[in-house]
């Protein structure tokens, strides 16, 4: 009996891919023409920045924290991209590097003072929002031409967004899940005491993960502004919630260092496509956020069910 049932871990690992497949089938059923190069190009237009933001969130969740400022940060990066990076590229690059350093410092502050990350990052979200408003009081600006050209590259056979997402998933998977240092970084989320007892610095792991979150946040903002070519201070506010949902959809847990970069990227795509399905179904866009929430709840419910079955064994 048990031999016939797939292991709960396998079920859990397959959930992100299954939910994405289910969504694709539904889209195909409603709008067969969408399942094509052009269809995907259109539908997954914004998958790239969302995937980067999701990976940024994943880095923070790995070390048992939560980043409620990622949306505001991505917006800020987009604003820098639409202004300084275009007008004075050197200044723009310096500011973006500085922003990553700020992220690392936030991680250090959280670790050293043992602060709740949600309050600190909520405060940071106001900080980034304020910076964006200062930089770009009203929507506008324009992205550097090279950036716009880069993110809109037409690749043969498979749309660019899918290729970038796949590459992102692969790189982060190798770095975090396969490398020797990745094991320590995840271990710091799983059993910090044991990792510290084995002689590793928890401060360093936290700073590394927050700096990585900042780095991926920068990539998210740049790819976003490349696609939209202009920015505003609130352009990516939704990303905070989307990125958390993406990590969770992808099989990540909030505590204990259990994350899956591949799953998270799939989760980000699922959330992006969910919007398309709704519009194919002619459901008002009012329900877009609600649908994302519902997907999140359904996935969490499924996972709770799998966990419960596992415990019963």
């Amino acid at each position, binding site marked *: 009996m048990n031999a016939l049932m797939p292991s709960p871990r396998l079920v859990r690992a397959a959930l992100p891919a299954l939910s994405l497949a289910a969504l694709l089938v539904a889209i195909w059923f409603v709008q067969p023409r969408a399942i094509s190069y052009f269809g995907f190009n259109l539908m997954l237009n914004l998958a790239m920045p969302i995937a980067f933001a999701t990976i940024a969130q994943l880095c923070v969740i790995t070390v048992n924290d939560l980043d409620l400022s990622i949306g505001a940060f991505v917006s800020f990066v987009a604003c820098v991209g639409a202004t300084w990076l275009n007008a004075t590229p050197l200044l723009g690059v310096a500011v973006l590097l500085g922003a990553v350093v700020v992220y690392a410092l936030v991680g250090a502050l959280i670790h050293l*003072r043992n*602060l709740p990350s949600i309050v600190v990052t909520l405060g940071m979200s106001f900080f980034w929002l304020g910076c964006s408003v200062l930089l770009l009081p009203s929507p506008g600006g324009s992205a550097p031409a090279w950036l716009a050209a880069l993110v809109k590259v037409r690749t043969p056979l498979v749309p660019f967004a899918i290729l970038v997402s796949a590459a992102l998933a692969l790189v982060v998977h190798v770095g975090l899940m396969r490398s020797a240092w990745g094991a320590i970084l995840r271990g710091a989320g799983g059993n910090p005491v044991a990792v510290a007892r084995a002689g590793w610095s928890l401060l360093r792991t936290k700073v590394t993960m927050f700096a990585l979150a900042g780095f991926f946040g920068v990539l998210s903002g740049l790819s976003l502004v490349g696609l939209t070519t202009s920015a505003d201070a609130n352009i990516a506010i939704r990303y905070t919630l989307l990125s958390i949902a993406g990590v969770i959809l992808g099989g990540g847990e909030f505590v204990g260092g259990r994350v899956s970069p591949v799953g998270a990227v799939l989760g980000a795509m699922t959330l992006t496509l969910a919007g398309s399905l709704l519009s194919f179904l002619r459901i008002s866009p009012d329900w877009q956020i609600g649908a994302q*929430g519902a997907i999140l709840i359904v996935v969490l419910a499924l996972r709770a069910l799998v966990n419960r079955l596992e415990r019963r064994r």
Partner: protein
Amino acid sequence: MRQSAFSRLADWSAERPWLWSFVGAGLIFLATTAFTSGKGGGDVLTAALTFATFYVIVGIGQMFVITTGPGNVDLSIPANIALAGAVAMKVMDGSNAMIVPGLAAVAAVGLAIGCFNFALIRILSIPPIIATLSASFLVQSTAIAYGRGLRIKPPPIFAELATGRVLGVPILAIIAILVAAAMALVLRRTVYGRSVLAIGQNARAAGLAGIRVARVRFATYVLSAVFASFCGALLAGFSGGASLNMGEEFLLASIAVVVIGGTSVAGGFSNVPGIWGASLFLYLLVTMLNTFGVGAGVRLILTGLIIIAVIALSGGRRPGRG
């Protein structure tokens, strides 16, 4: 002699963590009126009392949630406010006769959201942050779908209630002061309040001391949601109708007033007066920066940095814990 007087003063203020928020609010008020050479001081104060009211109502609910221990926070407040405001306006439909049914509907909204939040926390056994976040997605969508294009004005009496004054003091402020006094009593002098404080300090010990931890948490999430809903209704009454984004600023604000008001984010230690002090502080800060001609950007940056500074300074000091 001097030494002991000083240390007594230190003890006295340590027992009153809310003091600092009032001191901060007072200093900012003085700075503002000094800048305008005293002109409009009274108006600023009245406006502060009115706007602080909304922070206070939401903040008290959030404070109870945060007090129940680390990880507990209600992120569904903004969506809740948007939905409750829309429901209030639609049910009341501009008619004085419908105010009471409208408020009943608002209470029902709060109750439903609170129950939903806690059901997610319990049944899916997920952290409250994510539970309230995912619930807020659904609530927000409901609010958008339900309240789109809603242009119903609040009933005259309700609007009067939200904007009127008695002897120059906003009615809303009076209500909020009464509510705050009542909730301070609930926190200190009821079994429920004591249970909240105990759970926040040590949930396991609380269970072993006979407290029904799950029930108390349930009640707390419902409390927070109901307070947020009423805030939504009052906000709609105050601003002449519901708007979908009127709850946005309350996500940070509700947490900020709790933290600035001297409540420990580690749980088990909180006070109601601090919510008032912090709410006045936050509003007066905005007023001051406006008076100084500082733009919205700097204002936001300062708000964020002040919250981080407050938590960084107070967070390390966890009384009694290694």
